[in-house]
């Protein structure tokens, strides 16, 4: 299931819903992305007061659903969930949740990792960081492209 929403979510409630009543599930892997309180990626950047997440309504839902469907094709998942928020978020706030439930932990880990890697490079979201010097659009990162490319299948884009 995928959800694109302004509101926060409760990780415990979402994970419990994902597994409820399905005794085949042996493990759930989950990743939660949070707003950091500094610019850049090495912890030395300017302070971030808040972040605004813009998205492309319609295409976002469609891309997330396609990415989830790809994960379900590649791994034996009992269930999966992607929640991505948009709007203005303060430091420490939850941005995204990816959760995968499977009989075995290996499938859950790999599918969860795949989902967040592909989401980062394919789902149409953009981050605007507010710093003491004003707003700044976050640049895409090569390392995210490399992380996503790990999951490319031979002979396919």
């Amino acid at each position, binding site marked *: 299931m995928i959800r694109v929403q302004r509101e926060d979510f409760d990780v415990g409630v979402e994970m419990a819903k994902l597994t409820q009543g399905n005794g085949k599930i042996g493990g759930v892997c989950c990743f939660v*992305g949070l707003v950091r309180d500094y610019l850049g990626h090495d912890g030395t950047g300017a302070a971030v007061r808040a972040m605004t*997440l*813009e*998205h*492309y309504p*319609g*295409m976002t839902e*469609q*891309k997330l659903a396609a990415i989830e469907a790809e994960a379900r094709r590649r791994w034996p998942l009992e269930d999966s969930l992607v929640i*991505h928020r948009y709007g203005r978020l303060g430091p420490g706030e939850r*941005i*995204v949740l990816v959760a995968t439930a499977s009989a075995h932990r290996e499938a859950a880990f790999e599918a969860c990792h795949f989902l*967040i890697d592909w*989401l*980062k*490079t*394919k*789902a*149409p*979201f*953009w*981050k*605007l960081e507010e710093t003491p010097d004003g707003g700044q*659009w*976050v*640049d*895409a*990162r090569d390392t995210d492209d490399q992380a996503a490319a790990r999951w490319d299948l031979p002979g396919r884009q």
Partner: protein
Amino acid sequence: MKILYFAWLRAKIGAGEEDLAPPAEVATVAALVEWLKRRSDGHAAAFADMSIVRVAVNQDYVPLDHPVKLGDEVAFFPPVTGG
């Protein structure tokens, strides 16, 4: 044709959406970009470096030689940074 702009492209152009009817010879994304660049300095600035612009036609990623036609929804935006 519905044209959408996101993130800094929207900021540079000063609008998130335009409803336009380009002439028939504007048959590809690349031709559409050249046509849009003539609309304002903001458009020209937004499309100055197409290596940092991504394009979706009817909500699917497409290359610059992809065809466009009246009725299409064409979106321009920077590489995505969600998650």
